[in-house]
């Protein structure tokens, strides 16, 4: 079964202090704020990608 997560926000975060590249996604998942690495084997990131593909989630660009 797919563990469906309630993801209410997602935004890329740059690596500090240089801000040259996206480091991870800061996401609120089932009410908990996670810093989610961009690793397809990470179950949070995999679910974020699924919900983006399904059109139910948008990842905001980094500030």
């Amino acid at each position: 079964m797919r563990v469906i997560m309630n993801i209410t926000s997602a935004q890329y975060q740059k690596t500090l202090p240089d801000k040259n590249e996206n480091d991870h996604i800061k996401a609120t998942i089932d009410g908990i704020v996670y810093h989610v690495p961009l690793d397809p084997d990470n179950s949070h990131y995999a679910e974020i990608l699924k919900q983006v593909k399904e059109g139910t989630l948008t990842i905001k660009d980094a500030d």
Partner: protein
Amino acid sequence: MSKAAELANLIGNINAGGGGVNRNVLINSAMNVAQRATSSTGIGASSGYFTCDRWLFGREAGTEQARFTMTQDTASVGIDSLPFQEAGIRTALKMDVTTAESAVASGESSLIMQRIEGFNCSNLDIKTKPITLSFYAKSDTKTGTMCASLYAGSGGRHHVKEYSITTDWQRFSLTFPADSGATALARDNTNELQVNFVLTAGSNFQVTADQWASGFDTATSNQINFADSTDNNWYLTGVQLEVGQNPTEFERINNFGEELAKCQRYFYRYVEGNSKSIMTASAILANHIQGNINFPTTMRSTPSLATSSGTNYWEIYAGGSYRFDSLSGQQFHTNGCTLLKVNDITISEGDSCITYTSNAACTIDLNAEL
């Protein structure tokens, strides 16, 4: 089971490629480890890991009304009662129904699962060898037919078996035959094999027992609705999954540290509580500190970080003490990560500081669960 019968079973499994030490591919099978919490209420609103490590609560539809309190229970496991004394078991997973669900809709289901990483189960040649699942379970009031199942991720195949729960502890043994239609389990870090214990299952998940088939199905039509009353409590412990057609004695867990380390590959609580050391950090810019932490074992995947937040939860000392509300991270890998705080602190570039927690509710968690 007599010692002679136990020996015969073990020899039978060795002949089938199993047996020996570390024959149980499940982790935290006696519910010893509970890094997150020993009890959690309101379970059912979402899927997730809440108490005993590695044991996942799942719900399918999101419309399920049933709610549970999930507990690492000690009261149900009598310290003097056999066979728990022989098996060294002191804890059980308890699911206490706190909101009843009178009728389970077709697409609804709630279950307890353990997902097994391919690196830990690829020795189970499910195409040619049987697998045996054994466990202790009981109920406080509700009795009847319950279901347990296996789900092989690579081929998307399931096999459901029934067991009859009573108000007494019983050791159940379910043997799953080889599946000639299976895809070999991959030797990687993904969810290759899953053990499921069903609490409720709508008709969409009900199939015929005792056969391998495609799809994710977990129960038969005989599965009782275990959530139909707040009087219902379900207990599980001593779960063992091994190669072979025979159940062997539960593989006693003698070293808590080893079991904890196995769990920490998937979830690691780095710190919990007030006035706990976190790390030394350096101000790489003014009012911008970074420090590194290392994990005690290589995690399954690059983990997610969750840190608690609240007014003055965290503190640094660098010639003066500064409290702040939240802590973040970056540059994650399977053996460590960087923690950082930018602004809301006063520290000169190039200075170092110590960092520690400043509230009893502080936690830093790394999550690489399946």
